[in-house]
């Protein structure tokens, strides 16, 4: 295995990795706020809204992400009547699938974070005269995010690895280029290179969240 060979495949693979990173960024930026809104919907006093949100979360977490991606890419266009308007660019469709799916997971994480907050926090806030909005934004949410942080970090690492599902809907990404190179050059080196690139990405992410956790340790 020559150094030259690795540099020659590195170019296209890093190009594929760009797709991976792009999907990751879009998915994380959109699904965290959306997940948070879902948590609020689940917690809402408006019963139909909370039931809807719970149903949504149940379906998204109860079925494979791959199935959801295939459905959005290939299933939607086959719906009689409206299907022709639902033909999305593959990458856009994949982003949509990831965001919708991960929002459900983040919603569960945030809900768990809320459950972890002692009712004494609400009571102290009330006795001190804080209103509901002040209590939520200044007392509850900061603690919820703190509690949720390790789970959010974990889910983000999973998201990096899940981007490999782009392969299944034929969006050229890191794994696609590795597989192509393996078939073309009869060597498994590209798989190792791909593995290393994934490891690099998850390492950066892990360090990033470690940093945030340290900053919000409250000790």
């Amino acid at each position, binding site marked *: 295995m020559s150094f030259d060979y690795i540099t020659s495949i590195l170019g296209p693979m890093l190009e594929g990795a760009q797709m991976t990173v792009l999907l990751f960024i879009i998915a994380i930026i959109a699904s965290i706020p959306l997940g948070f809104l879902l948590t609020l919907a689940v917690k809402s006093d408006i019963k139909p809204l909370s039931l809807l949100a719970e149903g949504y979360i149940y379906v998204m977490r109860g079925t494979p992400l791959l199935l959801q991606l295939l459905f959005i890419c290939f299933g939607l266009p086959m719906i009689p009547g409206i299907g022709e308007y639902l033909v999305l660019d593959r990458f856009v469709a994949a982003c949509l699938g990831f965001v919708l799916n991960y929002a459900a997971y983040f919603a569960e994480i945030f809900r768990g974070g809320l459950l972890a907050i*002692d009712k*004494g*926090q609400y*009571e*102290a*806030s*009330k*006795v*001190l*005269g*804080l209103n509901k909005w*002040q209590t939520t934004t*200044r*007392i509850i949410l*900061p*603690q919820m995010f*703190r509690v949720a942080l390790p789970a959010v970090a974990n889910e983000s690492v999973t998201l990096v690895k899940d981007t490999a599902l782009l392969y299944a809907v034929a969006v050229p990404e890191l794994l696609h280029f590795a597989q192509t190179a393996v078939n073309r050059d009869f060597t498994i080196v590209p798989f190792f290179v791909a593995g290393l690139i994934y490891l690099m990405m998850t390492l950066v992410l892990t360090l990033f969240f470690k940093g945030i956790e340290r900053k*919000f340790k*409250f*000790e």
Partner: protein
Amino acid sequence: MAIIEVSNLKKSFGQLDVLKQITFNVNKNDVVAVIGPSGSGKSTMLRSLVHLEEINGGSITVSGEPLVKEGVYSKPQEVKRITSKMGMVFQHFNLFPHLTVKENLELPPRLVKKESPEDIQKRSSELLGKIGLADRASAYPANLSGGQKQRVAIARALMMNPEILLFDEPTSALDPELTGEVLEVMKALAEEQMTMIVVTHEMGFAREVANKVMFMDNGEIIESGHPSELFTNPKNERTKAFLTRSLK
């Protein structure tokens, strides 16, 4: 002059009548110690005063203003204004863990009171000095001992300038060697004529600092009076039995 008047207060949780027609007054500058066995309704009584529990009947009046009148609550903003005359200190402190000691003290008045930040800061450093924690202003609650936490919780309640301070077993969650420092702060408040209602198992404190003791059992006030009287010469059998058990 009565600052709190409670009459025929009733509270039940489902079928369970936790407070049965409770009536008592607290005068300005009183230190009232509330004692009684577990489950007798002491916490529920205290929590009803600050509207952490919704009562089912009776009246609560705070410095002449009705919080509830014969089971009917005043308008929400009135309830809020009236309950804001009272501060509460909880058994488990309930400090805000994501805020430093100083922020714990200053955030609530900043959000709720119309006061300049300078005035708020001035008061918080005064209070921190008073509870002996001036050097821990930037510490997080996680790094404080239980006794320190409870002292901060008292200071936080005082930041709102309450007319009355309620304590629900303020030392029960503390290691025995840490109760003294909290009781000292409470004693100092009593000496400054703070009106206080203290649910406590600390008979020594009740005897020494309170000017009135209320013994509750099974959702009723069985007996109340000056500690010198109630502790040495209890009239009711249940009071006697309780005191024998807890003073042994």
